[in-house]
């Protein structure tokens, strides 16, 4: 049972462009929505996170947009750089954390 659906599976963006990754959830009890970045051979690292009482959170080039009524949230990476090439996971948490299947992002130099 997949409770967090993530799309797209893979994404190619030109350097300087905007990368957008989308996630949808089903369980309205989720109350914390983090995004993780994972490089090959490494564990995931927390990138940015949001609580459902906020519609948007921005940290540097990374922004989470959150739509509680639609049960959707998205990650926007502005001015995408080759160093952003990695796999990104959305997640949702109540008493345990559920991860999406991931998006492989490749930024063309």
């Amino acid at each position, binding site marked *: 049972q997949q409770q967090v659906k993530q799309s797209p599976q893979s994404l190619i963006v030109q350097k300087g462009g905007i990368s957008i990754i989308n996630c949808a959830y089903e369980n309205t009890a989720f109350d*914390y929505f983090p995004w993780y970045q994972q490089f090959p051979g*490494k*564990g995931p*690292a927390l990138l940015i996170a949001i609580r459902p009482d906020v519609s948007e959170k921005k940290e540097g080039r990374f922004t989470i947009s959150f739509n509680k009524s639609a049960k959707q949230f998205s990650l926007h990476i502005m001015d995408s750089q080759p160093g952003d090439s990695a796999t990104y996971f959305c997640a949702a948490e109540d008493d345990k954390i559920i991860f999406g299947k991931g998006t492989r992002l490749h930024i063309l130099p």
Partner: protein
Amino acid sequence: DAGVTQSPTHLIKTRGQHVTLRCSPISGHKSVSWYQQVLGQGPQFIFQYYEKEERGRGNFPDRFSARQFPNYSSELNVNALLLGDSALYLCASSADSFSYNSPLHFGNGTRLTVT
């Protein structure tokens, strides 16, 4: 500061065998959680321990067990290994039992291959 350390980094086992994976959390962190990451998928929650007590369990069979020691390090044990247990096993630590109070810090994982 040392991050979350996991050992071993790689392991090859045969079907039916038993395996023990180890995790040392960041100093001061009292919560340890374990995840299974199959190739091309997101991490799947297995267990969380906080202050040496089990706080959560994911949808995994009883062949999977874990424990946390007084120094907050942890072990994940898997009995009667199946080919489908081949995955990257990740450990994460946090200061608190809830992520929104303190973020998860992941180790680089143990790559388990079952033949």
